[in-house]
């Protein structure tokens, strides 16, 4: 072995020709707050990795005639005025592959949870979205396990559904529950944290680990203490990791938590690079920042392997104002939104979905038949209940039919309420809604409603497990299944 090695080295040294290595270099003329201005360095590409004297890396994102503006990726390394810089010829990339499953990485693929990532495949973080011909219509549901979402704002695989709401309204919980519900469904889940507190990311990790979700999940994290450049890269890196699986015919769910902080990080970078500020001091390309990311969510054609990448971006609003700049941008990019409302949240309605302002533009096409059959009138019933509830505050003399409608609406609202990590299968959701529509909960007082629903589910699992299994398997609610469910409650 040693002889072979020395022979190999001798052969290599003998055949090695000494050639000068020639490359362009630039000089740092200004540096501060994670941004450097470089003079010289012609012929650079947008997004190219630059190496600074001393080992620090940056990414060229402003190309000018006489130099480039770069964001520094590692704030720890000292970069000073006069430091030399040279281009690496590579754009910023991230390791991808099966070895990332169960791991926590930063936006350039460095492990944050121990051993190095072993992968031979790297994807550039910025990649073009699949073209029109490579796509097909969304046709498969991505069940979240939450009745209010699966029935009223259904999500299809390959869809982009925004989760929007004020702080502390359960946005992350909804996204995490959607991840937890993918257990055993062959969906790779990626949770991308942007500008979150490290303690928040740690809590998310604990939830994923405690529920066995890390077996099919990847966490990409750029916390609040990371540079704006790392926060800027984080969603693109998460998307690139997801695309690897999508291109191999797999289904992927990516949660971007959250794009408001991503926009803020990009604004900080842009202002430091002295780009012209526009509305709310965001740069002119803020829309493109998110549109090019979310366009990468796709439902690929069968010829391209049929993989899907579903995106659940999160946006935090201030004071419930969904018509602010970034929220309206992302609303217009996505295929619908789940609006979580503070008032509902504080009234104990969780997930606090405002059914009036929430919409899914393509999910209905992917909704299972069983759910479609039992949820068609839910939105109207809820809207009527909310309207009536407002008027009922002004007077106590209500006729019997109004009182009945109010009670029914209240019961329905409670039926749509679920605890954290308390997820229902398609069959359970369908059965509960079907029985609700058919008088299974009539006469139950609203206070007893949650208990009654839990008891009903237990009863169904004991008395008609085959019916539940059939609904889950076929995704349909047959007449026979309807009869079995009604028999179960003695109707």
């Amino acid at each position, binding site marked *: 072995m040693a002889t072979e090695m020395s022979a*190999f*080295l001798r052969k*290599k*040294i003998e055949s*090695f020709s*000494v050639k*000068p*290595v*020639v*490359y*362009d*270099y*630039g000089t740092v003329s200004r540096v501060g707050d994670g941004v450097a201005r470089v003079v*010289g*360095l*012609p012929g650079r590409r947008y997004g190219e990795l630059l190496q600074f004297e001393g080992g620090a890396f940056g990414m060229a994102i402003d190309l000018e005639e006489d130099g480039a503006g770069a964001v520094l990726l590692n704030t720890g390394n000292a970069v000073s005025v006069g430091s*030399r810089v*040279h281009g690496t010829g590579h754009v910023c990339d991230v390791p991808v592959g099966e070895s990332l499953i169960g791991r926590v990485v930063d936006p350039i693929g460095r492990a944050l949870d121990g051993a190095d990532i072993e992968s031979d495949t790297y994807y550039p973080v910025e990649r073009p979205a699949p073209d029109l011909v490579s796509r097909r219509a969304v046709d498969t549901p991505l069940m979240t396990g939450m009745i209010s979402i699966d029935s009223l704002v259904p999500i299809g695989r390959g869809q982009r559904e925004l989760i929007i709401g004020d702080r502390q309204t359960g946005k992350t919980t909804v996204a995490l529950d959607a991840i937890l519900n993918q257990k055993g469904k062959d969906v790779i889940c990626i949770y991308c944290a942007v500008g979150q507190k490290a303690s928040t990311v740690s809590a998310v990790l604990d939830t994923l680990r405690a529920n066995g979700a890390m077996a099919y999940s990847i966490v990409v994290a750029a916390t609040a203490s990371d540079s704006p450049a790392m926060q800027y890269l984080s969603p693109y890196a998460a998307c690139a990791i997801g695309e690897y699986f999508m291109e191999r015919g797999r289904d992927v769910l990516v949660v971007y938590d959250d794009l408001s902080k991503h926009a803020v990080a990009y604004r900080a970078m842009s202002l430091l690079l002295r780009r012209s500020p526009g509305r709310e001091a965001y740069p002119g390309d803020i829309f493109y920042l998110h549109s090019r990311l979310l366009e990468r969510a796709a439902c690929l054609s069968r010829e391209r392997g049929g993989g899907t990448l579903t995106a659940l971006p999160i946006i935090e609003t201030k004071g419930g104002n969904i018509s602010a700049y970034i929220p309206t941008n992302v609303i217009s990019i996505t295929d619908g939104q789940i609006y979580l409302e503070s008032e509902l949240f504080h009234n104990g309605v969780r997930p606090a979905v405002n059914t009036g302002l929430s919409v899914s533009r393509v999910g209905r096409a992917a909704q299972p038949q069983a759910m479609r059959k039992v949820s068609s009138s839910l939105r109207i019933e809820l809207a009527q209940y909310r309207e009536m509830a407002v008027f009922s505050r002004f007077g106590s003399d209500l006729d019997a039919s109004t009182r009945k409608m109010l009670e029914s609406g209240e019961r329905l609202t409670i039926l749509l309420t679920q605890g954290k990590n308390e997820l229902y299968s398609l069959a359970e959701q369908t059965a509960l809604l079907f029985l609700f529509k058919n008088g299974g909960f009539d006469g139950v007082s609203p206070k007893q409603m949650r208990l009654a629903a839990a008891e009903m589910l237990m009863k169904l699992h004991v008395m008609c497990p085959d019916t539940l299994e059939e609904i889950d398997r076929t995704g349909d609610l047959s007449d026979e299944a309807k009869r079995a469910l009604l028999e179960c409650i003695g109707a």
Partner: protein
Amino acid sequence: MKTAKIVCAPNVSDDAYAYICARFARRFGAEAFERETDAQLLGGFVVLFDGKVYDMSLRTQLSALRADCEKE
């Protein structure tokens, strides 16, 4: 005035330095020279001139050899 910065390893002699300066003046039109010493180069020299780096250091050549060996 076009100045070339020549970073040499400590073992580069004055004669060798003068030869490098002469070659750069003739071939690229360098008019003035600054000399610096960097032990981390291990051997050879690096010239910075007109926005380009001409790297003939032993450190870089060994890195290239290592990369070549790692390919197989």
